[in-house]
């Protein structure tokens, strides 16, 4: 019989215990590497949350994780494991960059919205092809989206190196966009209020991410389209029974998923670096899978998990910087441990908690 935990324990206590466990194991790893775990933890926490600038960077990274986490979650509600968010975000960067590079004679109020549309559109297009192949040809979405990641790497390197590279320079990147096409920075606005973060890359894409969280919640749990997507994901045969075309909704879900992946391009390309760089997605698409899993594919969970990963990312960068004896690879190990304990082993402590707090699932009359 299923034993149920009280809601607060399921959603609050269990994840916290998992993170504590991850930190304890991390401490052992650091000890084994001859480092002081307490000092390291202190550097990570203060590096992620210790100052206005630290918080701004954490939020900047968390914005990427919100977009990729939502992208994975929407596809997942349709029963699709979209491994290709990384490539979709990458191609979305092309769309955003093309607008910012070639339409910059238009005013900023026109270019920036166009860049948003282009990023979402390119991402959606890159996701829709595997979706179409799954719906019409039965090609498995996991395989095709992985292949589309590799295709996006090759395509983007080719385009940047051969066509979009700034003239007369060696680094494989485009020229810096004209300032009026940049996503507005938030650092200056926020300064008078909470966090003084001049010069941080935090930009308006974060506001778009917050809007996206709410919009995805409405879409998945309140709209007719979201209902249809969830039916297809939960039981394709029930969808056919209900007159919901599974193939059509697979394509729609992938379009939405790819469009959300495009948010990374807004944050990184239009808001952060103001140019298109090779590999700007830096693995956020893959982290998005962990974010969605830990966040249980619910926007609130995605938000919390994205904040955790944003903090890990920023704190880890500080750690590698402040304690050079801790190599960047060790930082990745620490981040991996958190993913392992909160994601893959997320239910490990559940039986023990059930024994302590458990109440039995309500009995169902036969």
């Amino acid at each position, binding site marked *: *019989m299923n*034993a149920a935990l009280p809601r607060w324990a399921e959603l609050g206590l269990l994840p916290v215990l998992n993170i504590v466990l991850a930190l304890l194991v991390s401490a052992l790893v650091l000890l084994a590497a001859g480092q002081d775990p307490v000092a390291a933890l202190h550097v990570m926490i203060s590096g992620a949350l210790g100052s206005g600038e630290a918080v701004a960077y954490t939020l900047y990274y968390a914005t990427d994780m919100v977009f990729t986490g939502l992208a994975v979650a929407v596809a997942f509600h349709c029963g699709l494991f979209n491994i290709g968010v990384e490539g979709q975000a990458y191609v979305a960067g092309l769309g955003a960059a093309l607008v910012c590079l070639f339409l910059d004679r238009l005013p900023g109020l026109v270019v920036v919205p166009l860049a948003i549309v282009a990023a979402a559109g390119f991402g959606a297009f890159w996701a829709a092809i595997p979706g179409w192949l799954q719906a019409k040809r039965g090609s498995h979405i996991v395989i095709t989206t992985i292949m589309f990641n590799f295709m996006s790497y090759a395509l983007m390197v080719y385009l940047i190196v051969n066509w979009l590279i700034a003239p007369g320079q060696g680094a494989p990147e485009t020229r810096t966009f004209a300032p009026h096409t940049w996503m507005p920075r938030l650092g200056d606005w926020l300064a008078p209020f909470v966090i003084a973060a001049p010069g941080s890359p935090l930009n308006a894409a974060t506001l778009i991410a917050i809007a996206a969280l709410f919009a995805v919640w*409405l879409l998945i749990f*309140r*709209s*007719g389209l979201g*209902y*249809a997507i*969830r*039916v297809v994901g*939960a*039981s394709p*045969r*029930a969808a*056919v*029974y*209900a*007159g*919901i*075309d599974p193939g059509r909704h697979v394509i729609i879900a992938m379009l939405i998923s790819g469009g959300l992946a495009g948010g990374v391009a807004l944050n990184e390309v239009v808001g952060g670096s103001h140019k298109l760089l090779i590999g700007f997605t830096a693995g956020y698409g893959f982290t998005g899978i962990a974010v969605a899993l830990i966040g249980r594919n619910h926007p609130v969970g995605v938000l919390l998990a994205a904040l955790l990963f944003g903090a890990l990312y920023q704190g880890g960068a500080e750690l590698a910087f402040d304690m050079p004896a801790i190599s960047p690879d060790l930082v990745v190990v620490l981040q991996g441990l958190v993913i392992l304990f909160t994601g893959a082993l997320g239910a490990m402590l559940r039986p023990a908690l059930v024994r302590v707090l458990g109440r*039995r*699932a309500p*009995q*169902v*009359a*036969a």
Partner: protein
Amino acid sequence: MAAAVELRGVDKRFGAIHANREVELVVERGTIHGLIGENGAGKSTLMSILHGFYTADRGEIRIGGEVVTISDSRDAIRHGIEMVHQQFMLVDTLTVLENAVLGAEGGALLGRRLPAARSRLVALARSYGMDLDPDAIVGDLPVGAQQRVEILKALYRGAEILILDEPTAMLTPQEADDLFALLATLRAQGKTMILVTHKLREIMAITDRVSVMRGGRMVAHRETAATTAAELAELMIGRRLASGLAKSPAKPGRALLAVRDLDVPGANGARRVKGVSLDVRAGEIVGIAGVAGNGQSELIDALAGMRRPSGGQIRVGDAAIWPAHRFDAAVLRAAGVAHVPEDRLRTGLVPRFAACESAILGHHQAAERGRLGLIDWHRVAAATRALMAAYDVRPPAPWLRSSSFSGGNQQRLILARELERDPVVLLVGQPTRGVDLGGIDAIHRRLLAMRDAGKAILLVSVELDEILRLADRILVMFDGAIVGDVDPIGADERRIGSLMAGVAEPLAA
């Protein structure tokens, strides 16, 4: 002589559910012992304990007078206990011989042992009057023969006590008769059998003694000769069943569902429905009888819009539905066709959805909406609660997961959803599969009330009793075609059985 099986004070809990309470059971050697009870009465748990799938919390098991511990099926086999499951545990692509020795190969190398096994198996089959080719591929055999292989396999492994779980569920009446003849032979040779079923007719026909379970308790033991089906039914459900259905003669009107020369492909593209024509008129129930797998499922799927036909015509009322460019379940629903699917958990509901989410399956476009055209789940849940009250779905909890309801309550929820929208035509597949006796009665009354309200109802069931009870006309399906059109009043069950088995001359439909 000690009894073959003795269960004393067997008690088993699953969390809050007390599946077996202090159960006592004595099965004498060389008898056929019936075990009956509604779904959830605890029969399966009890038999699983005897077979080593579960271990009892308390109580003891004696086999031939000796107290034994049975902690897995290997222990059970060592004590001569074998189970013949409802879903056969056979490998379709292996031969009868290979299946029989499976798990009893007696070593890593088969080669030299197979001839010895073959002669033993053939001798065994002959001694029980079974006619089986040891080299036939199991998947090619009819269902009745597959079941004999399953029994033979148990005997080959030295079974003295056979547990048969709903053995006739998949059989035609003739095959069931053959099975009972085989069981009688086994009994004559001293084997002991426990027959788990909910079909009282079979209990009356074949068993020596019968034990009745209800709510986890053993409520009665009877000599079969000294009891009646009515008494057993009463013991099973704990109250008296209203005797028979008050079924008035049908007053059919015009044809609301008209099907002509319909061809429907199966999953692998082969034609599974072959040129079927039928009419279902307002105010009548047309029953489709047949052994499972003869195209009934594909026929219903096509009429519900879930599977595209490859030829023929479908009309609902005055509207031509097929052939047409757009053909899916939404089109059929819009035309007034409601569908209670045979596979309710995978098709009729979404198992992990809350009941109120499942309650708008197929109708989410018409669900209660709030601002921005978004679904207003509070109102949907309130409507679902009202629906649950009207159709006696228990517990009336719209936010409970669909899969947490018992089979009968899931079925009532689906019926509620499908009937509530006032359909013109009602397609019903296996309406009472897995539903207990009290629930069956309520569902049957509901269907008859719909008929009397002028709906056209097409009923597919593998339970011939159910079709005989409800239908105003019976169409028999065999190998994708309709091979008989029978009036249920005074129908000869054996004749329908022969039609179902494809051995009678087909009648002109």
